[in-house]
């Protein structure tokens, strides 16, 4: 009986669990939150007393059916409120054999007395998703400036609107659902600003964008958001963004500016807009610490973004380890679901069938969608144009652009110690890629790309290499590990993928 461990219960992980169960595996599904759903199917928890959970969600009924099937399956063990804090090689030698051991903590988030366990598997599916990419600008550390994803998560999970008069800015189609959600929460969305210009967006999506969008299942949803914005007469401006936030103790106004194709500011185009919140997002960054800890090779897109390298069956370079969803590319929930479904089935040793080949085609379509999305909404290379010497870049340690520029010629490790950029509580999750990009602009050391990241999974210095992937308290680390309870005994059955 194959033991499949799935980390993350978003669209990708839940799908993987469903097909792995269908192929007869014993499945352990691990999720840091209290309930499955991930970022896409985020909803208030049961305590909230919500009667019509489905009202704000696309595809909620399918999701709920899959969730109920997985959670009630006799061969599935669901571990909610459980965080994977480390992955460890099973043998003393980094055996190229089985997947790594999964170290988990179960209990209240960041609590002091969580239960520690180590879980073994025959195959591991990584489905931990992404977070917003946020480029710094003067004032982005002011309260009231949040990521687009945060604004969305607050509406969906907490029923809180981040502000009454809001600007939504950045790049990518995700700005539309965020603006629509804020409108639904009763906020006034003063403007939606897409930094890329119409020519770039049209060229990126290509001649027949609807064919692609249809394949990935996103078009009707986007059309609905666009209609909502039009109904509320929200101005959607292209080639413009927020280049500064100002306020006394919290954001009170933002400065927007017109951008050239490379995202340099058109002088004299600055305007101020009074707001009480600004929601900004420049796409998504995959959460790579667990894949890197597992020894999975990464791949680099032409624009420098890094993802887990996988083959057409979602296998990583590490035997027995699969990566799915946002970890392999950014293409939205339908693509994440297709990837999860294929990887879960194969991880469980499910046989090749016509349905599996259909999934492979869906995964390939998702990959094409990701490529077009990235081409239509790139990050312009001249964005550092809007930084000033006193602009905070590393939020945790409050390291400014000037200090980073002064350290640009140094070895990355020396400059990290010297400036303390990336040494705060978030451990470089937010500023790491930005600092690396700024270093590359500065003085790249000869013979390297200046980024010092692993291509082959080797344990070199890397912004993603965190031996401790999620915080663990010293007391918890010192406590003995509870034995892992054996999951219920399986009844073999092979359903459809």
């Amino acid at each position, binding site marked *: 009986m194959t033991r499949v461990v799935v980390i993350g219960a978003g669209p990708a992980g839940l799908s993987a669990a469903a097909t792995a169960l269908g192929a007869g595996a014993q499945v352990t599904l691990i999720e*840091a939150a*209290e309930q499955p759903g991930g*970022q896409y199917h985020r909803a*208030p*928890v*049961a*305590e*909230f*007393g*919500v*009667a*019509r*959970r489905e*009202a*704000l969600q696309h595809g909620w009924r399918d999701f709920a059916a899959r969730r109920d099937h997985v959670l009630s399956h006799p061969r599935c063990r669901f571990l909610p409120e459980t965080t994977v804090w480390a992955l460890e090689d099973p043998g003393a030698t980094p055996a190229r054999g089985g997947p790594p051991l999964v170290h988990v903590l179960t209990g*209240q*988030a*960041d*609590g*002091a007395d969580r239960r520690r366990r180590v879980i073994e598997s025959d195959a591991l599916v990584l489905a931990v998703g992404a*977070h*917003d990419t946020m480029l710094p600008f003067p004032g982005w*550390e*002011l*309260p*009231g400036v*949040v*990521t687009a*994803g*945060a*604004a*969305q*998560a*607050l*509406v969906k*999970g*907490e*029923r*809180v*609107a*981040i*502000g*009454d008069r809001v600007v939504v800015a950045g790049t990518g189609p995700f700005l539309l659902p965020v603006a629509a959600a804020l409108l*639904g929460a*009763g906020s006034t969305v003063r403007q939606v600003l897409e930094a890329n210009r119409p020519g770039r967006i049209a060229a990126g999506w290509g001649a027949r964008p609807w064919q692609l969008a249809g394949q990935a299942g996103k078009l009707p949803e986007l059309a609905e958001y666009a209609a909502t914005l039009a109904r509320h007469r929200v101005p959607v401006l292209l080639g413009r963004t927020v280049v500064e936030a100002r306020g006394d*103790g*919290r954001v009170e106004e933002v400065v927007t500016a017109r951008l050239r194709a490379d995202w340099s500011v058109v002088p004299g185009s600055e305007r101020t807009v009074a707001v*009480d*919140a600004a929601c900004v997002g420049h796409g998504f960054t995959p*959460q790579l610490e667990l894949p890197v800890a597992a020894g999975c090779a990464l791949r680099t897109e032409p624009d420098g973004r890094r993802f887990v390298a996988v083959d057409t069956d979602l296998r990583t370079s590490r035997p027995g380890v699969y990566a799915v969803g946002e970890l392999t590319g950014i293409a939205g929930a339908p693509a994440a679901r297709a990837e999860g479904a294929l990887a879960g089935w194969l991880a469980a040793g499910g046989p090749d069938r016509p349905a599996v080949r259909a999934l492979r085609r869906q995964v390939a379509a998702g990959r094409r969608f990701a490529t077009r999305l990235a081409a239509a909404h790139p990050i312009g290379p001249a964005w550092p144009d809007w930084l000033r010497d006193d602009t905070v870049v590393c*939020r*945790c*340690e*409050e390291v400014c652009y000037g200090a980073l520029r002064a350290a640009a010629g140094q070895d990355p490790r020396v400059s990290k110690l010297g400036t303390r950029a990336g040494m*705060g*509580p*978030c451990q470089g*999750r*937010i500023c790491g890629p930005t600092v690396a990009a700024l270093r590359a602009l500065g003085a790249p050391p000869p013979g390297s790309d200046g980024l010092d990241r692993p291509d082959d999974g080797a344990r070199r210095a890397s912004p993603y290499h965190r031996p401790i992937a999620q*915080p663990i308290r010293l007391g918890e680390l010192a406590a003995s590990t509870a034995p892992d309870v054996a999951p219920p005994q399986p009844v073999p059955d092979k359903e459809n993928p």
Partner: protein
Amino acid sequence: MTPRLIRPDDDVLDRDDRPVTITVDGTPVTGVAGQSIAGVLLAAARTAWRYGHAGAGRGVFCGIGVCFDCLVTVNGVPDVRACRRRARDGDAVTTQTRLPADGDGDR
């Protein structure tokens, strides 16, 4: 008076709110059962509850546990991400500071 909770009678989700009361630096703050501590603080129109090296306020930034901007002390345990921790009745939340003078900041 922002941010704010969507009023239950305006909510398409058809809510039946039950209150949850926590204290923040000793002052009672009421939110809705099921909210995170960050959700309770925001719904009470608070945007900042942590103070950085230079004394500037911080609150929620990423909303999903990645940025660590929202750290608070809960029932004596420091460095709890307010956006990840569900608020429970009676939780005693204290705000944190990284001001150098504080000596024992949040890290």
